[in-house]
């Protein structure tokens, strides 16, 4: 599905502010996989995401989605941006924000509205459909951004700390929602998170990135039994072990896998 080959990105090359964000990063994600990426703040996770989405052209290496080199944004892709509040359109109501991308899906107005409402419902925001983004709390805005991506039914979904601004309970609900949607609609998901527990809980695989310039320092397969559950899964010894493992990797110790 997704092949990243020796990717490098340098910001402001040749300026005094030159910054090597990514260097020699290799990664591949299988169809239908849910990959979690963790790594220190400022290491280059969002940069990696932008490269996959074709929003920046990396200064070295290449990204392939479904075997095709990414030059422009690949088809059927959705992104939940880290800066969610800025990615919503302030002149549209919440429902319109969610419905907008569906125009590309050739849906008529009614179908768009229904899909949008359904997505909003799934993130617990059906009451907010007529509101404008600025009338929502931070966490609600973030959920609108998630709803927008979900409603779009992408085959590849990129999520940049999508649950950072919601409370613990909602977060769990959203994690389960993502797992459910992924199961139903054959989606490949790349999810960036800072929450190590979360990465292990939702991920099929967890990739740990190094400090800048980012490259892969750990790549752990998460082999947890059957449908995941917030209580039982998190109590599972493998979970506890993997969590500790990821934690060690993030803190810069060698992996012990």
């Amino acid at each position, binding site marked *: 599905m997704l092949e990243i080959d020796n990717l490098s990105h340098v910001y402001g090359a040749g300026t005094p502010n030159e910054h090597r964000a990514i260097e020699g990063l290799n990664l591949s994600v299988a169809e239908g996989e849910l990959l979690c990426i963790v790594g220190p703040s400022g290491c280059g996770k969002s940069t990696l995401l932008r490269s996959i*989405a*074709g*929003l920046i052209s990396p200064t070295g290496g290449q990204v392939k989605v479904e075997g095709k080199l990414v030059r*422009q*944004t690949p*088809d059927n*892709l*959705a*992104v939940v*941006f880290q*800066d969610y509040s*800025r*990615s919503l*359109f*302030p*002149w*549209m109501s919440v429902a319109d924000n969610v419905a*907008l*991308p569906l*125009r*590309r899906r050739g849906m008529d107005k009614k179908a768009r509205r229904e899909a949008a409402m359904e997505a909003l419902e799934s993130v617990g925001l059906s009451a907010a459909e007529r509101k*404008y*983004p*600025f*009338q929502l709390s931070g966490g609600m805005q973030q959920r609108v951004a998630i709803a927008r991506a979900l409603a*779009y039914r992408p085959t590849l979904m990129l999520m940049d700390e999508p649950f950072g601004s919601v409370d613990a309970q909602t977060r769990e609900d959203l994690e389960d929602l993502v797992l459910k949607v992924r199961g139903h609609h054959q989606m490949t998901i790349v999810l960036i998170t800072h929450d190590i527990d979360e990465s292990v809980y939702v991920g099929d695989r967890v990739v740990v990135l190094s400090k800048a310039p980012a490259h892969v320092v750990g790549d752990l397969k998460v082999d947890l039994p059957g449908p995941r559950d917030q209580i039982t899964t998190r109590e599972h010894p493998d979970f506890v072990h993997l969590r500790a493992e990821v934690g060690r990797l993030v803190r810069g110790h060698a992996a012990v896998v």
Partner: protein
Amino acid sequence: MKATAEVTAKATAPPRIARRSRAAARRRGVRTVAFRWLVLAVLVLLWEVATRAAGSAFFPTPGTIVTRMQAMWFSGPPQRLFLSDVAVQNILPSLGRMAAGFAGGALAGVVLGLAVGLSARVYDYLDGVLQFLRAVPPPALVTVFLVVFGFGLRMQLAFIMFSIVWPVLLNTADGARAVEPLHLQTCQVFRLSRAERLWRVVLPSALPKMFAGLRLALSLSLIVMVFSELLPGTTNGIGFQLTEAYSMFDLPAMWAAIVLLGVLGYLLNELFLVVERRVLGWHRAAQEPVG
């Protein structure tokens, strides 16, 4: 905390997003209007006193001017809204020219502005020429306009459009260029078509700046309308009456035209603000301090 309280009400109750608490709003509206008229009344009074004291033929009193306006334009039959023949023959054609010129110029400004603001290529090709044309004084080009467009309406409209297009163009380009990058990235990610990006994202975010340009262009179109009525071959219009009045030293008539222009400008601007408030409701609301 009165100020904040006012802001609060305004912020949370933009038109179209939510209707504001009626009674309070009405009260505040009445107060603002009353205040505005009070200021106006005081100024007119000062004007009357000053012109009386000066006693110059060049500066007739507001009373004289209003009398003249009434006699010249508003002494017609009631079924014609009191418009006299002179008014029908001059004010209406002028307004028509202005409206057509404004519409054409605004449209051209928006289209060109978007093109220049969005495409680096178009910008490179056109920027030099546009900046050149923008600085060219139209009165020096009357002969060229005459040769290209001929006498009369066509030339006048071309003249008006040529003059008012710039504020709209520059501000639209500025707005189109300053669209929040993340909005554009969102468009790109969801593969919105060019038209959708333009119509649903670029245009709405450039609108606030476009409106600044349009508001400038509106009063400018009145000004240029007057200029256009000085062009060879004009036989009617407010501008025509204005110059004719001055060439015959009929200063009250000239002042009448000036005041009429002022009043028209004021009314058109109020109308404009009503439209702006409708269209930019979201903007106002979103930009007010949260509260």
